């Protein structure tokens, strides 16, 4: 079963995002919301970890949370897709299960 992992913590502040990456399975999807959106940016101390996870997982970011923090979509890592709240809902419907990393 494919799982949607929802992560809402900055990877620079908490280990939650790391823990999420360590427990997600190949074929799963990861959605960054709230403070986790800052993890989508390329050229950060976290970017390489996320790129490695993208080898076998799909990664998404909630666009509104990115722009709220002054980060434009053209700075995110290649291959990460932006979604709005409707897209967030679609992700929860398209994956059989979800897990929130709090």
């Amino acid at each position, binding site marked *: 079963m494919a799982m949607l992992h929802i992560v*809402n913590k900055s990877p620079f502040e908490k280990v939650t995002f790391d823990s999420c990456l360590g427990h997600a399975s190949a074929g799963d999807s990861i959605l960054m919301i709230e403070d986790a959106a800052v993890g989508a940016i390329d050229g950060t101390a976290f970017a390489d970890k996320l790129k490695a996870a993208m080898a076998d997982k799909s990664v998404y970011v909630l666009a*509104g949370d990115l722009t709220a923090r002054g980060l434009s979509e053209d700075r995110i890592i290649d291959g990460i897709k932006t979604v709005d*709240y*409707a897209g*967030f*809902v679609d992700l*929860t*419907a398209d994956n059989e299960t979800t897990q*929130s990393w*709090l």
Partner: protein
Amino acid sequence: MKYTVMINEGPYQHQSSDTALQFVRAALEKGHEIFRVFFYHDGVNNGTRLSVPPADDRLLQKEWSELGLEHGLDLVICIAAAQRRGLMDESEAKRQGLDADNIIEGFRISGLGQLIEGGIQSDRTIVFGD
């Protein structure tokens, strides 16, 4: 698709209530069913009617209340968490011998079993918290 949503944080302090509100609105717009929204931990504070934020800020508790009434949502506040934090409806306040209550229209107070039942009955259970 049928959803249960759990919210673990109070309004303003963390974004989880905001995000859950936008999520529920988007799900309703797409024609999904919201079986239940369960407010747990500090999430129970989303159900107070005594909030008056600055005029240029959102009033989250009222937005939940109005969304609930408009769509007939089952907005459930966990009774155990509510008792710890001072969120009361009229009958519970009376039962506890308290002189006031503070719940906003559209919410109801019930037990933790409602969360588990939501998980069983729904196709998806989504948790928002800190």
